[in-house]
């Protein structure tokens, strides 16, 4: 018998859930009721419209994350749960960022977007909307590369994740 391991780690949990009204609130309610940390949550229907796929970024000790996956599995509408961070996987996030683009900053913004392989998808005299996808870290470094005063709005989707290779999470 051992004492719990208390080292906190980031985990990406992916799950398949019945696409029913109220299912999302069961998941978010579980996290708030049990005091689990929730960094981001994304959800949308899959190719089978009766199912949704959800990606949750959370953090906690091994014991807590074990409880999180067990508690999620216990929700009646959840079909499958995996902790993607247990093996090789891919994470992507989408960001739409509106920046001030006037004078010398206009050229600089364009250059920065190019370096990060972003796309400018809306243009006015004074602003750009840049679309950028990548890992959380890439989006973070893009944001920190821009002078804060020039950022008008940031909208981030939260992470979508999928396992690498042959492993599939399917019903």
């Amino acid at each position, binding site marked *: *018998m*051992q*004492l*719990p391991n208390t080292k906190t780690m980031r985990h990406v949990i992916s799950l398949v*859930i*019945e696409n029913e*009204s*109220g299912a999302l*609130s*069961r998941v978010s*309610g579980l996290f708030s*009721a049990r005091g689990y940390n929730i960094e981001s949550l994304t959800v949308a229907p899959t190719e089978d419209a009766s199912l949704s796929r959800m990606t949750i970024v959370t953090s906690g000790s091994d*014991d807590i994350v*074990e*409880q999180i996956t*067990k*508690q999620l*599995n*216990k929700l*009646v*509408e*959840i*079909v499958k749960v995996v902790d993607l961070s247990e093996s090789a996987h891919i994470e992507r996030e989408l960001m739409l960022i509106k920046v001030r683009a006037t004078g010398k900053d206009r050229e600089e913004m364009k250059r920065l977007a190019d370096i990060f392989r972003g796309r400018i998808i809306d243009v006015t005299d004074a602003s750009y909307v840049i679309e950028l996808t990548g890992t959380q870290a890439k989006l973070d470094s893009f944001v920190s590369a821009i002078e804060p005063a020039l950022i008008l709005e940031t909208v981030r989707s939260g992470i979508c994740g999928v396992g690498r290779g042959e492993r599939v999470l399917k*019903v």
Partner: protein
Amino acid sequence: MVLTGAEIVIRCLQEEKVDYLFGYPGGAVLYIYDELFKQDKVRHVLVRHEQAAIHAADGYARSTEKVGVALVTSGPGATNAVTGIATAYCDSIPLVIISGQVPVGAIGQDAFQEVDTVGITRPCVKHNFLVRDVREIADTIKKAFYLAKTGRPGPVLVDIPKDITAQKCEFEYPQTVSMRSYNPVVKGHQGQIKKALQLLLEAKRPMVYAGGGVVLGNAADKLTALVRKLGLPCTNTLMGLGGYPATDRQYVGMLGMHGNYEANMGMHYCDVLLAVGARFDDRVIGSPAHFASEPRRIIHIDIDPSSISKRVKVDVPIVGDVGEVLGEMLAMLDAGAETNDQESLGVWWKQIEEWRRRDCLKFNQGEELIKPQFVIQKLWEVTGGDAFVTSDVGQHQMWAAQYYKFDKPRRWINSGGLGTMGFGLPAAMGVQLAHPGSPVACVTGEASIQMNIQELSTCKQFRLPIKVVMLNNRYLGMVRQWQEIFHGNRYSESYMNALPDFARLAEAYGHVGIRVDKPGDVEGALREAFQRKTDLVFLDIQVDQTENVYPMVQGGKGLTDMILSAEDL
């Protein structure tokens, strides 16, 4: 056959062989009540408060192997039911609750008596449904019963808008349910079971810790067989009482905060612990760090994976139904030639007997004041240990658990997880209806009983001859005890003034009321109460106001840190 939604609801209940429906009418469920009126298979029990409807259905379920069923109206009907639902949820009791809702088109419009019932109850149900189409009623009710009673049981709520109970559709009750997202594991993993048995056979100081899961899983016989076969000591949690016969020599008593000395010491110092359908609650092991300070290996059988390694790390987890897993273990034992280490076991039993000699439950019944422990002891004697005993919450609950020796499962009916005052009397109604002719006692306190005392009226209407055994200490005794021990005797708001004359109150409801003041009168009063087979008898027993529940492990302390009597304070 084309039926209305309301007819379908009643037909579904008939299909599920529901004999009693506990409920209270209101606008949103009028069509359903109208259909109830037209049939006589499902009998409706009209309570006096919706909380009591749920507790009564709960008592019915706990004392049988069936699902308890309740019906309430929208808005205040549903909110009144919430405490009952949460009580059942915390103790994993299978219930189906049908609540009325405002018409589909009115949902979200702040309609009269509209609350988001599904939202309010979500954290305290196993699952809930809002039915939006008359064609979904039958399927949903079928699923509700299935979910409530399979896997780890629990309450399931079905919220039905009024308009769809009036709409019509073709009715056919589904014979089977299949849900791709819900498949509880029943059979345990063979390899793990083998490993567990090996560990148990090699143990020098084995201990069995059995909980509510044994009762819920109807596995008391198998547990008893295994424990006897291997000669092991066995302790039960508050929820597991009766899961192993309390009068058996191998039983060491309840464990935990108010557990027996020998049970707590055995739990702490064993080298292999077999945990069966028990969840290492904080009232059971005290501080997890202290519990972990003594090395031991733990085998844990539970149907809910999330109960395993939640508060205590387990060495051999076995996910499955207790009955199935214990059955496998017994079969393996029968097939193999192995036995356990008798010599070590003998030494261990000597140690346990030495602990037992501390006689931690002894008390002194003097001439003057009635000791509450004495009342329960007499209750056990007078009923031959074979009554159904429900309880409220407080000191009286702990004394009932300690001094009534339950030899059979489903005889002890109490709110352990939520600790809901007001549970006892309505729960006793459900028990008495399920077991007409059997003795049913409700052990209560003068504070708890007042939280649902209106149900004396229901008891009159349905002729329920419950024996209310009220240990009247004129205090919120459990609160007073904590204030005495942890808050310097400052009895802040734990004394209740202006108590009614309970015997006369019972009489006003049409029952028999008896007040008992002297130790010498206790047994006689109990005998009279149980001889009155058709009367509800309310015993107002004036007990020693200063008595405390011992042994006691203080919150957050270790199991071995027990206060055994007032001298330890």
